[in-house]
């Protein structure tokens, strides 16, 4: 090895050592942020559904009140502005609630030397002593986190496209963005995303003992709010085909 290589390796190891000492701070922050991105992507999908619901409800209301001369002016009671406000307010409420119950606990992540063993133990315990939290929270967190990985990929890819299109043309910038997007997807999935699943499982595990009727059903209401978000995250916000586009 040449002296230059040696000094380069030393510098790299030094940086890696510093980053290793800072992991306790940036890994949990990144996990929370990744879940927040996924929750937002899912809430953005729900927002469209809420708007469609509001439109249908308004159409039914308009159809009803327009039957009589007296009530006909009420057709103008709720317009598009109010309906979009309602849909966004509802989506934002869902989002902030999900951040509170799924993203925020990620900050309590404490990395262990053998994470796979910890995962195996948690899964075994969830299989032997199932509770609502143990069974639902980690898959929901994983769904939201997956949407977060896709969302971050799209943001990086888009920003690269915007920044590079004048330099390499739309085709070149799009190609670079696409390759970078795949790399970002792979790096985030292997560095951060799987830890979200472990932390969610650990969080649920800690709230599932001692196993009483109360702890078995603990988290029922939050789960009911989180399920639509998880559905939106998996089926609408995560576009596998977009990885190659």
């Amino acid at each position, binding site marked *: 090895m040449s002296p230059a290589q040696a000094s380069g390796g030393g510098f*790299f*190891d030094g*940086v*890696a*050592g510093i*980053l*290793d000492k*800072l*992991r306790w701070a*940036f*890994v949990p*922050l*990144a*996990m*929370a*942020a*990744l879940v*927040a*991105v996924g*929750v*937002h992507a899912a*809430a*953005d999908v729900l*927002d*469209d559904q809420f708007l469609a619901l509001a439109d249908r409800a308004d159409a039914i209301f308009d159809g009803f009140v327009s039957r009589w001369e007296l009530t006909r002016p009420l057709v103008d009671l709720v317009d598009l502005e109010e309906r*979009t*406000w309602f849909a*966004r*307010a509802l*989506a*934002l409420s869902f*989002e*902030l609630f999900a*951040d509170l119950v799924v*993203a925020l606990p990620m900050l309590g992540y404490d990395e262990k030397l053998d994470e796979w063993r910890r995962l195996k133990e948690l899964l075994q315990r969830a299989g032997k002593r199932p509770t609502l939290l143990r069974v639902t929270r980690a898959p929901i967190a994983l769904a939201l986190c997956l949407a*977060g990985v896709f*969302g*971050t990929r*799209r*943001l*990086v*890819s*888009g*920003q690269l*496209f*915007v920044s590079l*299109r004048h330099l390499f043309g*739309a085709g070149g910038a*799009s190609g670079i963005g696409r390759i970078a997007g795949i790399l*970002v997807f792979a*790096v*985030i999935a*292997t*560095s*951060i995303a799987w830890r979200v699943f472990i932390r969610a499982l650990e969080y649920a595990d800690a709230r599932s003992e001692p196993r009483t009727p109360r702890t078995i059903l603990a988290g029922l209401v939050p789960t009911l709010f989180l399920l639509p978000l998880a559905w939106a995250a998996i089926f609408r916000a995560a*576009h596998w*085909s*977009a990885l190659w*586009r």
Partner: protein
Amino acid sequence: MIPPRPRFFGVRRVLDFAAAVLCIWAGLAHTPPGALLRFTIARLTNTHTSARPLFAYYTGGIYESAPAITKPLPPPVHALSAQDALGAGAAIALDNLEAAQRTVPLAMLAREGVNEREALDPHAGPHHLSIAITRLRDRYGSEDLAMLALFCGDESARYAKEQAPANAELPQLVRVLPRGLCDRGPLA
């Protein structure tokens, strides 16, 4: 004794950090909770923040940033067909744009054989625009993409078509556009 470092220790630590930076950037810059955090920090430190209003983070902000229509078209003399209604809507939006913001739409219209005078004519403009929109629809594959192409240009429409799911509607198309590519999406 110091335990030996695992294989690829340095590379893994650097990649973990890079992934974390990307996640934190995305979370802070592109979500309402991130905006809330940035807004709070800006208030505490008395600094400026680029955080947008919370609702602007939904559907690409198309409902929040749609410009007010100050110059409506004269009422039509006969009932409009669906295609002419689209042209009439596009004409209103175009008429309400400032001259500098009309560059891209007028260039797209010129490509489809409609000149500036025809496009901005208060009576015949909607009809000319509906013809251009039909041509754009044939070119891009949907009315939503045609409207996006009209107001944001060819590059944005192609990018949105590439990134959005097949048969995506306008809100989904605008949602996949990165910030800085086109700020006229709400007009479409």
